[in-house]
């Protein structure tokens, strides 16, 4: 695929990007409870150069921690589109993969990569912090190899993604979140 060809500059940049991954501090579901242990003293994510960031503008990774309700999905898409490229998405937990335990829920989505491109999934409910760190290492490897191309896919297949988003979320004309 032509998207995988990188210039020498991109290759160097990808090396750097893999060593300094900033994660958006947005906890979308119950997976958020395993984030503090992996961020803090015991598992210490920062030794890989990762850290939480306050705003999507500065983030490289969007980390979907667990199930997404339709209401959250809308915010997640806004957030994803605000992030500067290149950006990566990790789906955490079975609920992002196939709906998990909420497969029949009327409020949660069943499949994340239908709406935004996902580079990596972590299966399990709840995955352990070790699984999380392993996933980050894998993502770093993918970035170095130039395999984490979700953001390019999003641009190429934007129409398809948009159509799926509209299917599940409906056209929105909400000006104010409080319907006031």
């Amino acid at each position: 695929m032509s998207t995988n060809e990188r210039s020498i500059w991109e290759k160097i940049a990808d090396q750097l990007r893999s060593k300094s991954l900033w994660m958006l501090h947005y906890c979308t579901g119950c997976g958020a409870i395993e984030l503090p242990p992996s961020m803090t003293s015991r598992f210490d994510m920062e030794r890989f150069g990762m850290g939480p960031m306050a705003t999507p503008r500065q983030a490289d990774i969007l980390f979907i921690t667990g199930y997404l309700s339709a209401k959250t999905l809308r915010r997640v898409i806004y957030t994803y589109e605000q992030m500067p490229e290149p950006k990566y998405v990790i789906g955490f937990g079975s609920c992002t993969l196939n709906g998990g335990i909420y497969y029949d829920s009327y409020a949660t989505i069943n499949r994340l990569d239908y709406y935004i491109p996902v580079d990596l999934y972590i299966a399990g409910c709840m995955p352990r912090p070790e699984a999380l760190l392993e996933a980050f290492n894998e993502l770093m490897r993918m970035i170095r190899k130039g395999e984490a191309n979700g953001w390019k896919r999003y641009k190429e297949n934007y129409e398809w993604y948009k159509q799926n988003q509209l299917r599940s979320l409906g056209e929105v004309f909400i000006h104010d979140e409080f319907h006031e």
Partner: protein
Amino acid sequence: MTNSMNNTIERLKSIIRNLKVEEIDEREVKIEIKPEMVLNALSLLKGSGYSHLSIITAVDWIEENKFELVYILFSWNDGGKFIVSTKIDRKKAKFVTVKHLWPIARYYERELHEFFGISFEGNDDMRPLFLENWDDLPPLRKDFDPMEYSKKKFPDREYHKDVIHEAKVIRGDLNG
């Protein structure tokens, strides 16, 4: 039943005829009353120390065509719990608000309106609270099928092979 619960039930009986009392536990009593007497009963209970409103919720008895509204009151003095229940018509799901007795009731009622479609007179704040752009029956009604809705709106992952079948074979449920 504790003494104060007995006394309270006596007082309730004096204002409400044919009160149905069901003792669930040593400190838990369920009383069933007619819808029109609910406000009186609740204010009496609140006045007798059962002032903590734990929850307002509803049960959908679809076969009887009724909604059962449940108010759970708790007393910090003796630990007694009253489950005040009343049944209203499912078709004309309307009741009166209790938000003047407990401010938080406003939100419980808003939630019930969203999930059951019960409206409360006197409580005008009935905007959707938890769901956004909801376009189906109120979800907690018994005739709403979440599976169907989920299939319609949130497509499943399409597997190339039947992994669930394979998993069952591996586990030994089926003979491959």
